[in-house]
């Protein structure tokens, strides 16, 4: 199973600031998903990236997949308190079929008013 590292583990910023969180591996991903989990709720899928170098935008969130498909980043512009949550990346392991997802441990983001 690929080791999936997310950084930073915790991030606390003020409303209006920009931030970037990262998801890295030493191996190539076939695809990568980003989820956001708000306190007391289940994770919600934000985006799936598939192609190396791909950039996807979701309002103030910009997702990028590395050219070599070993890493991904999530950039938030002008963060708002509603962005507070746990950001998780996940991939399909190459062994054992594509029924499963493996999740990183996440970045816990707090946006203070």
């Amino acid at each position, binding site marked *: 199973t690929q080791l999936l590292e997310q950084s930073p583990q915790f991030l606390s910023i003020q409303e209006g600031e920009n931030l970037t969180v990262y998801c890295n591996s030493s191996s190539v991903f076939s695809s990568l998903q980003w989820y956001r989990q708000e306190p007391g709720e*289940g994770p919600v899928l934000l985006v799936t990236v598939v192609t190396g170098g791909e950039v996807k935008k979701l309002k103030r969130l910009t997702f990028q997949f590395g050219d070599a498909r070993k890493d991904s980043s999530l950039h938030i512009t002008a963060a708002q308190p509603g962005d507070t949550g746990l950001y*998780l990346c996940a991939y*399909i392991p190459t062994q054992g079929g594509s*029924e499963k*997802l493996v999740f990183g441990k996440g970045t816990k983001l707090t946006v203070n008013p």
Partner: protein
Amino acid sequence: DAGITQSPRHKVTETGTPVTLRCHQTENHRYMYWYRQDPGHGLRLIHYSYGVKDTDKGEVSDGYSVSRSKTEDFLLTLESATSSQTSVYFCAISDRTSYSNEQYFGPGTRLTVT
């Protein structure tokens, strides 16, 4: 939002007692999953199902069993609960129409074993 409910949402039980958690979906998705989420460990797969009566183990299956007698229901059973099974449990579903296996999660069940 995908139609997924979990019951109960909160439960406190004693060590050694059996516990069953229920996941119910209204989306007719083929795949259903049970995860546990713990600080420092993230989301870990317990068991999953790829159809009625078809299940397989995940990363942390010891001490857990599952059953799926209908497409819409996936049950997770702790035969004899232990304190190490105190956790938040999430159910997820997937239709696998996308090869990337995008999953939709329920609201979670917080289980405390005393």
